[in-house]
């Protein structure tokens, strides 16, 4: 137990001053530290969970007897829409993001996450998105098209203003999901403490690493889909309108490309939680490699399953069976994990405390849900039970069994660390008993109801169906389930005031979060801990890369000698110290940017376009202030002695830098945007008899071809500027940059001219809508690229001598963005101008 950090009052005072947590209003809004923000995510999402639960109870009251009039059909539609949306978008994902933001740095021995201000931006976007969702109740226009919002039901013809609240609120929540994914990914890759190689990462950290990557692809696709839906509704585009060449099935493809991985985005962290609990109480973990393998396989294959939600839509049979095979095979990966946990527990006689009880409950329920999942993966069976209560039972077995039970287990396990107080074991047994029995009473019987033909999403049922007793039992079960959660809430409240002090490590856990005080201070650790095995609190082996070097580096990030927030950045594979990473302190900029976004979106909803422009200006202005390097910070870092003492740089470039990794993540997000739009283009093209549609003629190739060549040349001139920078030739640098800016501006001018010359309206048909979409996307991307280029050129002008430090990094990230823009430009030009002549 040499890892336990004894409190050093002097060091604590120095660190607490640097890592202060702002209190009072409005300073509270400037918080950027992962721990308070993680707690805010969890508290907010749990509040939404309770609201979503109340909506369920209302629906269960309605369904308790046949032909009930407690709720009108319209209200029932609104309630199941808000229930599903709340649980999927506002509870499950954000809660696990919050848990990860809180626990990840603790588990990997870091002081904070990689981009603290981005964490705050994510939280504000999430909170505002949730409020926009529920603001629909205030105006009496509640969304009613389901949490999946299938078109054409969600189109303007069938859904009112409520769907706009849904789409815009969801857009904000998606931004939160994307930034959380980016944050988690870079934090896990770069901020692990010395010695924590890939093979020593706790399974929960592994699960969040996989989830971080998945979030970038999944949430971005949904963001594009909701943007297209809102454009159809607000701007009259025709993406999903089959009467004008669009496709309502396109929405389902895009939605489920997000929707199915989302199940794994919330399930994988749950498996990480279960692995942590099983390890602690069994004093071992069997099959670590297999568990990690399962996570990686699920992370990939979950993106290849979306069509199994669409078996009833009339797709080609070959296509459906192709997806059915993948749906069956993914069971191998999750099955391997289940067997690993059972093998770990086997013969170890773990104590039957609340975390373990919820874990066992999870295994039982999830295995049942997984088995019905294999059943519905088989096409003919799915056709039989499609849109019945069998599916309701299956999805709740997977989502409540596979996610909520592990979350409850995790809360009972980690709340003593977060609050510093133990929960009451007796209340825990009551909570578990009510939850487990209530859940199975509610949902097991729904399998039978579904097989007897009770359709889902219908507000009532006839008495002749003979399902009264089934529904009454399900309603009783739902109230028992709710009672179980209320017992937990009471236990939580009681523990805050009367709970026994938890101490540092109440369970005898093996991972680093148990080394610090409970609750942990805002700075996490005094110095960087050094990990010597997969179970650092149980066993010690050695540190890859040298014990002495790691200890020296860890010592240097202690608070005393450093007047700014910093943590160690380490190697992606081995966890060897690479640099000392500066982290920003409290700032309002995240709140300004999020507020700008929400004002712009709500103003669009209300058709207050000037207000929308003002909101956009605030958001963009905030982003520019955020991203532009602060001279005083650079000066402070350059004059700091800490890097020299530790033998580590403060400024790093390339793969050693978190900025480089962040830029790569941004490019993944932009690539996914482009990929989703290209999918939409070619999908609609495939099902169109002629292309371009209607009376529109194929576009002329001459000017777009010339513009495209100019764009490609700009990439070459940027490379030349970069080479000149490395060689220290200031004249050539400026010439290269000027040429890049000139060529890029020429392309933008040509693009602007081409947009002005388009001879058809974006409302004419789906082809026209797609044409405008791509043109505007490319225009915006090139404009942002030119702004970045101009900023880089100004900075090179000022600091061209700084060839190895911050300036080099600035050029690297600008180069990554610009070269990506050029590639995207070529793809868009080929798609819009060349493909109509060829395909």
């Amino acid at each position, binding site marked *: 137990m040499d890892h336990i950090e004894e409190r050093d009052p002097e060091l604590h005072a120095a660190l607490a001053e640097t890592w202060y947590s702002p209190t009072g209003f409005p300073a509270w809004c400037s918080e950027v530290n992962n721990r308070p923000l993680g707690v805010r995510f969890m508290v907010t999402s749990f509040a939404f969970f309770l609201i979503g639960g109340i909506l369920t109870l209302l629906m269960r009251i309605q369904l308790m007897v046949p032909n009930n009039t407690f709720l009108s059909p319209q209200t029932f539609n609104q309630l199941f829409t808000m229930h599903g949306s709340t649980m999927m978008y506002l509870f499950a994902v954000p809660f696990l993001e919050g848990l990860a933001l809180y626990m990840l740095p603790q588990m990997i021995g870091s002081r904070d996450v990689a981009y603290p201000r981005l964490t705050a931006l994510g939280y504000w976007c999430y909170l505002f998105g949730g409020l926009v969702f529920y603001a629909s109740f205030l105006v009496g226009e509640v969304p009613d098209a389901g949490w999946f919002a299938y078109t054409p039901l969600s189109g303007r013809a069938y859904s009112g203003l409520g769907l706009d609240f849904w789409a815009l609120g969801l857009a904000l929540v998606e931004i939160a999901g994307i930034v959380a994914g980016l944050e988690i990914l870079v934090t896990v890759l770069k901020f692990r403490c010395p010695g924590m190689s*890939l*093979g020593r990462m706790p399974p929960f950290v592994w699960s969040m690493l996989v989830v971080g990557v998945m979030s970038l692809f999944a949430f971005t696709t949904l963001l594009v889909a909701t943007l297209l839906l809102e454009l159809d509704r607000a701007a009259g585009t025709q993406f999903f309108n089959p009467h004008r060449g669009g496709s309502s099935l396109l929405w389902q493809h895009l939605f489920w490309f997000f929707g199915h991985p989302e199940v794994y985005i919330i399930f994988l962290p749950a498996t990480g939680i279960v692995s942590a609990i099983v390890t602690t109480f069994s004093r071992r973990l069997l099959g670590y490699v297999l568990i990690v393998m399962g996570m990686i396989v699920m992370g990939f294959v979950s*993106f290849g399953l979306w069509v199994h939600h669409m078996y009833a839509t009339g797709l080609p*049979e070959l296509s459906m069976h192709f997806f059915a095979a993948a749906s069956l095979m993914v069971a191998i990966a999750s099955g391997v994990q289940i067997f690993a946990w059972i093998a770990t527990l086997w013969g170890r006689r773990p104590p039957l405390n609340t975390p373990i009880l919820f874990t066992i409950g999870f295994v039982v329920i999830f295995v049942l849900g997984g088995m019905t999942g294999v059943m519905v993966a088989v096409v003919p069976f799915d056709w039989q039970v499609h849109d019945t209560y069998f599916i309701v039972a299956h999805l709740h077995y997977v989502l409540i069994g596979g996610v909520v039970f592990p979350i409850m287990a995790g809360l009972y396990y980690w709340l003593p660390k977060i609050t510093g107080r133990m929960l009451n074991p007796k209340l825990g047994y009551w909570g578990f008993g009510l939850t487990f029995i209530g859940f199975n009473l509610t949902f097991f019987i729904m399998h039978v109801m579904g097989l007897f033909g009770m359709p889902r999403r219908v507000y009532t049922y006839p008495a002749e169906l003979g399902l009264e007793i089934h529904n009454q039992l399900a309603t009783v079960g739902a109230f028992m389930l709710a009672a179980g959660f209320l017992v937990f809430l009471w236990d939580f409240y009681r523990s805050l005031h009367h709970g026994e002090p938890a101490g540092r490590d109440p369970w005898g856990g093996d991972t680093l979060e148990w080394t610090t005080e409970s609750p942990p201070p805002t700075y996490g650790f005094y110095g960087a801990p050094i990990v010597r095995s997969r179970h650092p609190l149980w066993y010690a082996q050695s540190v890859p*890369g040298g014990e002495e070097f790691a200890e020296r580096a860890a010592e240097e990030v202690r608070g005393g000698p450093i007047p700014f927030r910093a943590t160690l950045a380490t190697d992606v594979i081995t966890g060897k*110290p690479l640099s000392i990473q500066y982290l920003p302190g409290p700032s309002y900029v995240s709140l300004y940017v999020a507020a700008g976004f929400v004002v712009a979106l709500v103003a669009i909803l209300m058709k207050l376009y000037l207000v929308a422009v003002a909101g956009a200006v605030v958001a963009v202005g905030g982003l520019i202030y955020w991203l532009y390097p602060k001279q005083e910070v650079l000066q402070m870092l350059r004059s700091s002695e800490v890097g020299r003492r530790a033998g580590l740089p403060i400024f790093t470039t390339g793969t050693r830098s978190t900025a480089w990794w962040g830029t790569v993540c941004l490019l993944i997000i932009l690539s996914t945007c482009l990929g989703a739009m290209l999918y939409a283009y*070619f999908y609609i093209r495939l099902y169109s008899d002629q292309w371009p549609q209607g009376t529109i003629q194929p576009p002329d190739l001459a000017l777009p071809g010339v513009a495209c060549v100019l764009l490609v040349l700009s990439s070459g001139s940027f490379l030349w500027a970069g080479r000149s920078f490395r060689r220290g030739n200031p004249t050539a640098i400026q010439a290269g940059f000027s040429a890049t800016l000139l060529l890029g501006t020429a392309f933008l001018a040509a693009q602007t001219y081409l947009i002005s010359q388009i001879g058809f309206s974006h409302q004419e048909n789906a082809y026209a809508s797609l044409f405008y979409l791509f043109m505007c996307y490319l225009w915006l991307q090139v404009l942002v690229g030119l702004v970045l280029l101009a900023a880089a050129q100004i900075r090179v002008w000022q600091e061209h001598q700084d060839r190895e430090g911050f300036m080099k990094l600035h050029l690297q990230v600008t180069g990554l963005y610009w070269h990506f823009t050029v590639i995207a430009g070529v793809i868009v030009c080929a798609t819009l101008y060349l493909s109509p002549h060829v395909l």
Partner: protein
Amino acid sequence: MNDSSGSSERADSAAVGVATPTAPASRFRLWFGLFGGAVAWTIHFLAAYAIAEFGCVSSFRDARFLGITGVAWGILAITALTLVLAVGALLIARRSERLLLAETREKEDEPEDFMVRVGLITSVVFVAIIVAQTLPVLYYLRSC
């Protein structure tokens, strides 16, 4: 990978504390062994989906060779290519494992050992998934 040079690189880096655990070529092998199977599956999935979804509603469906549709041929061809890639990743992971074992290392959670072990198992699983996803094609050789 040259065995002795690989271990001496590691020894050197440990001695000076430089954060380059393996030579670039060796790093590529580690990453390819770890994710080669996954990449192969991704290519197979995207290509086979595109061929099935788009091919079955286009004239490609009616193009036949030896009585088998162009769609089926396309999927079989991409399966063969991606299986080569996935099996290649498996073999590379296996070879890396042998080389690491030959270094008489004592810890099982050394980063390189861990990566090759995960790579080995993931490659096997992805080979199985690619094969499983191709099986339905055998029932649709003459139609979609």
